[in-house]
């Protein structure tokens, strides 16, 4: 049992945090969000140079061969700084699927480019009627000659508007909610028939609705085994859950730091408001939630390679607990700031908004409480 990060990991985290402190303060972040693309290619290149993009990618494809705890370090740092760049979409989800299920050719074509910061990906698995169920796939892929033709609507695809390539889940057999008959395809985001409607999300990031109308891809676009795409998709989603748990832990820590600083300096009735016990105990409960969430983020990272049922059970548990913690910490951070907490001017409301979206990502608390419940007697 060892809860320490290695020296290399600590150095990596220190350099990443230093960079974010210097180049990515709240004002810089707001300026990036206001640009047309909503994210910064310059920052992305810096992250590539720091090794953050390749840290958890395989050695053989210009990555550093790190594990889930390296991803956790990156996501926690990003959560702390409210980073809006498409790391989750490109590296964790997109490159994760390719590294996990892609062919050698796909890996060689995609992963080194991702590590260098020259390729953006998005995982287009959600659909308007699917809610949080990845098996609900009405997008179709029909065989045509050697290749496939894709038709359908993919919903709320994170950073789908910026992506160079999309990983699309499509039905190649079976009925709309069947587990079997889902296949994954690597699709050029600028291919004829792909229409992307990009938009900002509530927390200052980007997403897109994507329609596919008669989009032709060749046989090499299939990722992994035909009809068996749900397993790698679920695994990618679980990696995403572990990542957003870590991001939420970083964001909660920042929110608590800012809230305690405010409690110490803001004066009412002639004294710092942090001297009031009712506010102290609220701050303590935020801390308790955040520490329990950190424990679950660690457990989530540790169990990503566990057998399927154990993995899903733990990842759902983590998502429930982190989701509840994110809600509590976010709401109370705003409450303890009083009026200034409900303005857009201070960072705290932006932490609240990000924490709110992280609690929904890949399934909200109720969804994962239900999924966890399936394993209650396991």
């Amino acid at each position, binding site marked *: *049992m*060892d*809860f*320490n*990060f290695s020296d290399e*990991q600590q150095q990596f985290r220190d350099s990443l945090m230093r960079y974010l402190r210097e180049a990515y303060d709240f004002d810089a972040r707001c300026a990036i969000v206001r640009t047309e693309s909503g994210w910064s290619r310059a920052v992305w290149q810096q992250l590539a140079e720091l090794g953050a993009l390749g840290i958890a990618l395989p050695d053989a494809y210009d990555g550093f061969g790190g594990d889930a*705890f390296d991803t956790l370090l990156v996501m926690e740092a990003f959560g702390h700084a409210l980073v809006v760049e498409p790391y989750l979409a490109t590296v964790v989800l997109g490159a994760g699927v390719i590294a996990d299920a892609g062919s050698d050719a796909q890996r060689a074509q995609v992963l080194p480019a991702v590590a260098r910061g020259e390729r953006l990906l998005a995982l287009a698995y959600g659909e308007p009627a699917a809610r949080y169920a990845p098996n609900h796939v009405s997008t179709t892929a029909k065989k045509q000659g050697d290749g496939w033709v894709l038709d359908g609507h993919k919903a709320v695809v994170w950073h789908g508007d910026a992506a160079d390539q999309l990983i699309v889940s499509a039905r190649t057999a079976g009925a709309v909610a069947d587990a079997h008959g889902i296949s994954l395809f690597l699709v050029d985001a600028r291919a004829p028939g792909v229409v992307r409607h990009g938009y900002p999300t509530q927390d200052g990031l980007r997403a897109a609705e994507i329609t596919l109308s008669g989009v032709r891809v060749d046989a090499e676009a299939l990722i992994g085994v035909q009809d068996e795409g749900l397993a790698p998709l679920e695994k990618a989603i679980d990696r995403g859950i572990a990542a957003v748990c870590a991001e939420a832990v970083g964001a909660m820590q920042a929110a608590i730091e800012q809230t*305690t600083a405010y*409690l*110490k300096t803001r004066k009412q009735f002639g004294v*710092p408001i*942090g*001297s009031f*016990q009712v506010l*102290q*105990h609220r*701050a*303590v*409960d935020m*801390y*308790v939630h955040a*520490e*329990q*969430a950190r*424990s*679950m983020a*660690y*457990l989530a*990272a*540790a169990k990503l390679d566990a057998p399927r049922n154990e993995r899903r059970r*733990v990842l759902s*548990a983590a998502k*429930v*607990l982190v989701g509840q913690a994110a809600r509590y910490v976010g709401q109370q951070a705003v409450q303890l700031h009083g009026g200034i907490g409900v303005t857009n001017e201070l960072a705290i409301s932006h932490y609240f908004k990000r924490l709110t979206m992280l609690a929904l990502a890949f399934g909200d608390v109720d969804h994962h*409480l*239900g999924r*966890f*419940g399936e394993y*209650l*007697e396991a």
Partner: protein
Amino acid sequence: MDLNFTPEEQSFRAEVRAFIDAHLPADLRAKVLEGRRMTKEDYLRWHRILYRQGWVAPHWPKAFGGAGWNAVQQHIFHEECADAGAPALMPFGLVMVGPVIMAFGTPAQQAYFLPRILSGEHWWCQGYSEPGSGSDLASLKTRAERRGDVYIVNGQKTWTTLAQYADWMFCLVRTDPQARKQEGISFLLIDMKSPGISVRPIIMLDGEHEVNEVFFDNVEVPVANRIGEENKGWTYAKFLLAHERTGIAEVGRSKRWLKRLKAIAARERACGGGRLIDDPRFRDRIAQVEIELMALEVTTLRVIAAEMEKKAPGPEASLLKIRGSEIQQTLSELLMLALGPYAAPYQPAALDAGYDGPIVGPEYGVAHTGLYFNMRKTTIYGGSNEIQRNIIAKMMLGF
């Protein structure tokens, strides 16, 4: 980062488990698992079994007769004991006063008291709280006046757990009424057979005799039974409170209760005839508490890992107390709710071992409602959860 136990730790666990399997008496195990009433002799039987094995004091150094285990080994041992349904080891001697005597006692005190704590010859109780001194412990008023080589003790202690069994009490008394409240306190070891001591039961809300009031009427206590210096008792009391950090979360016992809850919810019927565990509302409540317990277990391991590296204790002990007690309360509440209408019958006689009279409702449920009532104490004792929040707030905010 590695959340797994090492192969050495795993083989240690196997060794502990094998010993418990071989030596925990079946009748004791059944009593604990079913939540039946425990006698003094029940506790002492298990205590003596562990004593003979050299395991009764996992955290004591070998030099004092302990097992000398590290924090991870202690955790594994307690988890295995809890899982198997072993009776709890009474903390008053082993966990509370023992380490104080080791750290601050005279060689004579160490030679006399420590072996008797280990063997179980002395049952200890804790003389801290008073009627007027709960959370504000340092305001305590029990007086000890020096007369030659004895103190004359007058006053009253309360909430004294299992004082009816106790041979000795470690007791905070006021030796300097003029000094600032923390600075006039001394730490005495008092023989419970001393003339002038009377013990009066307080019956808890579950109908059980667990705690007492203890009255002191001109009780003579030899000065030789004082720990450390006069008027420095608060220092030793704080040492004691800081000593037991990770056990308070009671993760092992809560895991056992969770198992029991699931087993019972799989037998009980929901309205409509399905299994209670398949009722979405009840299932979600079990799932919720299980998830919180998973997190608490990892948090506990994080604290243990920090302890192994001798990192300065932060507010984590208070965190473990807060969440640990809340989870115990939730589990006991769900154990009661699982019984449905059969949560109502009050059947104290059925809690005794060997009871073979009639039982109303399922036999497995006789202790649950009392347990729920009893567990309300967990957020109150050992520094109420509100006091724990004050402690964390002080570290976070400085106020």
